[in-house]
């Protein structure tokens, strides 16, 4: 067998970012208390785009307009990370980005036993991010309880498999990516990527903040 020189690179790659908020315990406690206090009709999203369910509360999309210090601290962390993601993955420089108007829709979810969220993406947005305030209880008998699952964008690519392509490794593997979020963890991705939350079977709460961002000249 000859050994040709081969350069292998990922094509059609999806950027996926991750950041951690250091020393976030106090902030997360304040956020959790605030969200649970406002888990009511006044703050519920009045026009949900997906099927509402009793097990998962979705707030209005104006979270980052709230004046509370804990919310504004989270806002800075999440939107700065989105900006960093744009700079890392595009040809834009910081000064280019600074000239654009930065929009966001941001909300929180509180999930309880058997709460989930249907697979979806976010039309009319460019970048999305999810921050974990509280991961919720891990459940041994439900290993995918509450995972944030990203669906592979290459639909149909696994319809034919054989022993030489089935064991593809990351980033080439054709399969979903499950992320078990930890408190203080932020994940960032293009808004076109379909994602879902598997049913959460903890006896406590799973709390996240999600943002959709778009930019205009």
């Amino acid at each position, binding site marked *: 067998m000859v050994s040709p020189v081969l350069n292998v690179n990922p094509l059609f790659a999806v950027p996926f970012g991750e950041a951690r908020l250091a020393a976030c315990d106090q902030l997360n406690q304040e956020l959790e208390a605030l969200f649970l206090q406002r888990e009511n009709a006044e703050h519920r999203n009045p026009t949900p785009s997906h*099927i509402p*369910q*009793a097990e998962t509360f979705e707030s209005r999309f104006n979270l980052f307009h709230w004046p509370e210090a804990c919310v504004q601290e989270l806002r800075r962390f999440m939107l700065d990370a989105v900006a960093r993601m744009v700079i890392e993955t595009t040809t834009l420089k910081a000064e280019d980005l600074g000239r654009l108007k930065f929009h966001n829709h941001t909300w929180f979810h509180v999930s309880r*036993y*058997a709460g*989930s969220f*249907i*697979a979806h*993406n976010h*039309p*009319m947005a460019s970048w999305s991010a999810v921050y974990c305030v509280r991961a919720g209880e891990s459940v041994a*008998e*439900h290993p*995918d309880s509450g995972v944030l699952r990203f*669906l592979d964008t290459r*639909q*149909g690519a*696994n*319809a*034919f*498999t*054989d*022993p030489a392509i089935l064991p593809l490794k990351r980033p080439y593997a054709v399969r*979903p990516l499950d992320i078990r979020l930890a408190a203080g963890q932020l994940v960032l991705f293009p*808004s*076109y990527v*379909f994602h*879902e939350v*598997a*049913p959460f*079977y903890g006896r406590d709460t799973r709390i996240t903040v999600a943002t959709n961002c778009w930019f205009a000249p």
Partner: protein
Amino acid sequence: MNATPPIVVPILATPFGVVPLPDVEAHNPALNELFSARMRAGASAVQSSPLCYRSPDDLFERPEQPVAQLAAAMVRGVATVVRAVNDFSEDQLRSLRPEARGWFTVVQPDGGVPAANYPLTAWCGIYCVAAPEPSSTRHDSGVLRIYESHFGPMFADATTAAMRLPFRPGHYGWRPVPGQMAVFPASLTHEIAPIRSREPLVLVTVRVRFIGPGQQGVARW
């Protein structure tokens, strides 16, 4: 203004068939009891949690008469959908050799079946043995949800978001009905949405492919 109506046709359409299996429906109670007995006996499961049991995919090799009848009817049912969406002659259809693997799934309240699709398979059929009452609070309780399979249209406005079937973007949901089988391409990602009723949902799934005369490249399952 030109009053001539435009010609609008669906392109890139996805076939989805619903096939009643009345001869099998009569045996649903027996099938349900057989499946319950296998679960109680601790038969090995491909996927098992307190809220979802999926048997191995050798169901159609079982000797029980109701299972054999079910297997034959499901494969025939898939073939009727194949015939409906192709221009095969009877001779051409008879020349195709079906291969099928089947399994049963019992989904308990608050449980669901995670999204999946099936490589090396042409068609998927899902037959309903027993279904809970619809939930008054969750209209997607226990539905078979087939995920949007087109490239996600990331630009939307008031007109594209409101199109009717078969043009509407987004997932498609079908509520399992005892005695009926849904048939669709096995490459489509699909799931059973969490059940918000008090009774379990009992399903039989078959994955089918048809081997043409002399066809190569179809590996064993």
